[in-house]
Every structure is written in C-alpha cells, then in structure tokens.
C-alpha cells in the first residue's frame, strides 16, 4: 500500500504533554554519551516528535507502518534548552509527500511548545518510506 498523498498538509492534534523529568533527561543523556546527566541533550526534543510520529502512524489512512520507515533528514531549531519540569506538546504538520518510484519521502514539521504555549523547539524531519517488500 503506497503512502497516502493526501497526508500532505495535514496537521495532527497536539500530542499529550510529555512530562520532562530529571530521570528522563538522565536516561537520554546516558544513551547518547553525554557527560552531564543534568542537561537535556540537543536532540532530546525527538521524544516529543516521536510521540507525534506515533500519532501520525496511528491514523487509519497513512498507507505505511513504522518498520518501513527510514530516517532521511532531521533538524532542530531551539528557542531555548529543554529543562526538567517542562511539559512539552508536539503539533505535527505533514509538509510534503513525494513519491520516488515505489518509495516515498514524507516531510513533517513538529512545533514543540511548553505548557504556556511558547515554542521551545521546532523539529523538522524527512522520512523515507520503503515500498512493501
């Protein structure tokens, strides 16, 4: 089943808040080899994008599943660092669906905001979705 081209332009509802705890920062920091377990690594916001992506994959009409997804590009623009105590929600918009042979490139922008609604980080991602094998 090919990727549904109608996904382009779709904005998903905001994710449930991701509660950032010191424990969660420390686990992520350890997993990427950070030397300070108290500082959220620059890529920590991926946990929010991940939640938004899971919500996208749960849509009934995407035409693809996680096992067929390979990450092609990722970018973060940080307004401020993530800190323990943040409650972050991600609002994902599918900005482009491009078909390349039996594959598709799906681009999305996730605006990650804190509990007051201020943007903390904007995460942009391009996924390569393989044809069913």
């Amino acid at each position: 089943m090919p990727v549904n081209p109608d996904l382009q332009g779709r904005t998903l509802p905001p994710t449930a808040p991701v509660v950032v705890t010191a424990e969660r920062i420390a686990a992520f920091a350890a997993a990427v080899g950070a030397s300070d377990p108290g500082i959220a690594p620059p890529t920590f916001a991926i946990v929010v994008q991940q939640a938004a992506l899971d919500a996208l994959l749960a849509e009934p009409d995407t035409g693809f599943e996680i096992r067929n997804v390979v990450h092609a590009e990722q970018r973060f623009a940080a307004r401020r660092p993530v800190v323990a105590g943040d409650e972050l929600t991600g609002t994902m918009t599918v900005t482009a669906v491009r078909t390349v042979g039996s594959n598709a490139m799906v681009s999305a922008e996730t605006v990650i905001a804190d509990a007051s609604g201020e943007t903390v980080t904007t995460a942009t991602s391009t996924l390569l979705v393989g044809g069913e094998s």
Partner: protein
Amino acid sequence: MRLDELAVGEVVAERDVHLTRASLVAYADASGDQNPIHQDEAVAKAVGLPGVIAHGMLTMGLAVQPVVDWLGALDPAESAETGPRILEYGVRFTRMVLVDADSGADVHIVAKVGAIDAEADTARIDLAVTSGDETVLGKAQVLVGRSAD
C-alpha cells in the same frame, strides 16, 4: 569569549564512540523509538536491511555531544545561561550504521569550525561522522550562538 575568535577549519572536538546492541536498546527506551529494525535481526532482514542498524537519531545525538562538551568548557567565566549554546542542529542520514551482534560498531566524530558570522556572533560547527571509514551523516551542521532571535 566571542565566537569570531575561532578560526575556520579549526578542530574543536574529536571523539570515538563504540556502539553495541545494548546501546540501541538503551536508546530505544530513552527515546521511545521502538522500531524493531534497531533491535531484531529478523525484522531488519525482512525489510531488506543487511542487519540491525543504529537509530539515525542515536548517531545524530551522540555526534553532537563533543560540541556540547566543548561549549561547556569554552569560557569558565560564562554561565550556561549567558554562554553560547546550540541554536540549530541538522543532519542528513546518508548511510546506515550496522551494529554487529558481537563486534558492535565504531563511530568517529570530528567537529570543525565551518563558518563564522561575526555580526551575529554565531559559528557553524561542521561534524564529520564516520563508521568504518564511511561517512554516515551528511551536512551535519551545528549553529552555536547566544540567542535564537
């Protein structure tokens, strides 16, 4: 310090990282990315991969840590609030990092000053990230400065 005191081409950090299958499980749990292609050989092969591969985001995440440490040590007189920080970070995932069940994988990172904007007091740090002599991240660039505005 001002970032324009740096020299383009200057190596600011370098690091070797060894990854094992356990590293991938730890990253999956910490990040929430439980895609089985990063843990299960049979699933990886079923979707046409040569074997279990590292999460691209794990490679991206570990590749920037030498820059984090360099920034933290740049000027002891500046606090984390006033000193330069990472404003933007982007990569292309150009090649998969295969993580062998027994021997794991080695990733080598070199961080160099790629460009300086004296007016904005920002610097672009370019990361060369290789595994087994092959480049695994393309256009891996870190913008450092004091403000996103």
